[in-house]
């Protein structure tokens, strides 16, 4: 079955006639020609397909495209402003927080979404109940664990995210470990 749909990707509208089974990930990669989000497992297990929908990180392989009409969808390609890189992207380059690069757009989107969750006061599994978490190694590693990296760049991803985190008043959240 096919249906008509408008998807707003990186600030641009795309009008599609689409098989209703199509995931957001396949819509991006195979219909719209935006291959920034990657397919690593197609089961929501690796995080390579992570994009932002209305600012929240979303596994696009587990999301049917037809549910995303009207959403503001952002891929790693559309994160930067005015043709530049997002601070998280620059930090990934500076810290060599990737090797093959295949998980990287998902890691980057996940980090941006995670920093927003953190700013909104969301706790993680390692946050002491009732406290406000410092964005230290363990908090970042926990919050980024939905994004697998087979090259094993985790030890560089954590400091990259830390360096890109906005400093909060009265904390050393942006500092080195």
């Amino acid at each position, binding site marked *: 079955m096919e249906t008509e749909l408008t998807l707003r990707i990186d600030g641009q509208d795309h009008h599609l006639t689409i098989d209703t089974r199509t995931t957001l990930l396949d819509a991006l*990669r*195979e219909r719209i020609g935006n291959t*920034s989000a990657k397919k690593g497992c197609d089961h929501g297990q690796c995080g390579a397909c992570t994009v932002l929908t209305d600012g929240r990180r979303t596994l696009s392989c587990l999301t049917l495209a037809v549910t995303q009409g009207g959403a503001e969808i952002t891929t*790693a390609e559309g994160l930067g402003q005015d043709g530049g890189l997002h601070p998280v992207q620059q930090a990934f380059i500076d810290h060599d927080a990737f090797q*093959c690069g*295949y998980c*990287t757009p998902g890691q980057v989107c996940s980090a941006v979404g995670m920093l927003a969750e953190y700013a909104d006061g969301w706790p993680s599994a390692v946050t002491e109940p009732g406290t406000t978490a410092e964005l230290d190694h363990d908090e970042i590693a926990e919050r980024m*664990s939905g994004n697998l990296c087979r090259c094993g760049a985790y*030890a560089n991803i954590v400091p990259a995210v830390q360096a890109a985190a906005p400093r909060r008043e009265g904390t050393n959240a942006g500092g080195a470990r």
Partner: protein
Amino acid sequence: MTEMLEHQAIGRGPARRDGVRKVTGTAPYAYEHPVENPAFCHPVQSTVGRGRITAIDTSAALALDGVLAVLTPDDAERLANTDDAELAVLQTHEVAFRGQIIGAAVAETSEVARQAADLVAVTYDQAPHDVVLSDSRDDLYRPDAVNGGFPTDSNEGDIEAALAAAEVTVTQTYTTAMYHQNPLEPHTTTARSEDGVLTLWDSTQGVHPVRKAVAKVLGLEPDAVHVVCPYVGGAFGSKGQLKANTVLAAMAARAVPGRSVRLALTRQQMFDVAGYRTPTIQHVTLAANRDGTLTGIAHDVVEQTARIKEFAEQTAVSTRSLYAAPNRRTSHRLAALDVGVPSWMRAPGECPGMFGTEVAMDELAQELGMDPVELRVVNDTEIDPDSGKPFSSRNLVACLREGAQRFGWADRDPAPRSRREGNQLVGTGVASSVYPVYRMPKSTATVRFSGGRYVAEIGAADLGTGTWTSLAQIAADALGADLASVEVRIGDTRYPEASVAGGSSGMTTWGSAVVEAARAFRAKFGADPSDGDEVEAAVQANPATDDYAMFAFGAHFVEARVDADTGEVRVPRMLGVFAAGKIINARLARSQFLGGMTMGLSMALHETSVMDPRFGHVVNHDLAEYHITANADVGEIDVGWLDEHDPHVNAMGSKGIGEIGIVGAAAAVSNAVHHATGVRVRELPITLDKLLG
């Protein structure tokens, strides 16, 4: 002796040249190259472990809207060469293992292709399958050689006599699991057959090797095959040799000429046809004097291969060169099973083999009451015991000493289970690492002066290893030019022929080709070339290999913390110190080392492909159930290297670094867990059940 390069760009740490493309996701991987109106291919796989296909009904699939073709053994094109049974796709009705590709659907969309593949109805005459590796099988056989062309067995002196006479012995069996490489980018291809040319945008460790192998299978001239691969989303050996999926993509493209066809294996299919590391059963024997001097080393390995094609992992080969001992024996025996074909995975041979040897060394140290670092120092050797040649450079002891200092090794109480912090049992472990210096016989590079810049072209690969960047550093130094004035082009058969990215041989081989071309360029055109001046040159054999054994060495140090109640293992701290010649790019090399160590941690604690003997397939065939290290599994990883000068290896003075990081890492984890708990885990992975009870 090779004329050494003067290091200017080499040794610095410029960021990846492909960095912006990778962090934005705009670097095109094989499935992503823009093509007009692509079709999509989805494989059909066998659902029995062995047997014969008696009927294939494609009518329902063909009736589906949007289906362009269904390929089966009944009507698929006959391949020109079927010598390699793994690549003889759709050429027989015999099923050799569960998950084998037995058909494919090609359709207008990926959804329809997948649905059509599901609708292909296959009936079988099923035969009993045999998929269980054991060292007590009566059909184990001795392969003619093992991977890398090494002799299957080695024997020197009399290991049995050494054992009988020894003051201290260790005789144990160690096992490593079946592992799947699982690069995050699956094996993918975009293929088009048009105007007599087959174009493959393929995810591969070598465009020229793929071209050669595909041309042979299809009966084409190599010039009629164009392979493109500027970026690879991880490989770890699995994309080093042509696999069935690429042949299938080519066949699908030839079934719909003029149309581009995209094929991506699913993660589940990756466990069936994309290669894996054989499980190993390793019998290790050490004989030693009271002072720790080894008098005998034996390493006898049992592992598996596929019934349709032999791959013999060289698991015991590194044991031949690591430590001195007058009496030595290694052997490899195989069971040929109804399974997919095992293949290269990061450090084939050294990686599983050094688990056995390096845990055995820890056991020996314990028996002797000797520090495990000192035991390794005592058994160091300046002469390669296997070849009898001196090492071109061997700094294992320096790595151990530097690592021990940096890690704070001296602070440990050697007694197992001697340190407890709260509910955590804390231990530290060490292991040695070794990896050979390989140089492939063939690779050619072009250096050209164009538009005021130097352009170096070679069909090399960047698997995330940093080739785009590090080859530019080498070219710059070889030309005596600014790094910024050098452009590198790789990953396309339009460029001169390059060897596969395997055996950590890339920089030695391609780098040497670039150096040859750059020097020839300067010799011919001087310091002030004209636009369009160009020279091509090839890597040369290294005569120093007649006189020297060449290896990189390293030492791993690990802290493990084990929950006294649950047995949960955490590794808050790893340190690797390596002696790998001149480090070309400090920033990228560190990533290579820590990536190898992280994969070693993953091997130690998580990874195992579970074969279901009833059905003959890997049951945990996805990333939720085949566990690899996630971010939160990794603590602090400290990486260091010695400033090692080796004038014999190549003009850069470099040794390969892609694989040594994983070698020995799992042993160091197991040794640390033993120190923490007193429990010796000889079967990977180190799971909770092995520490409790």
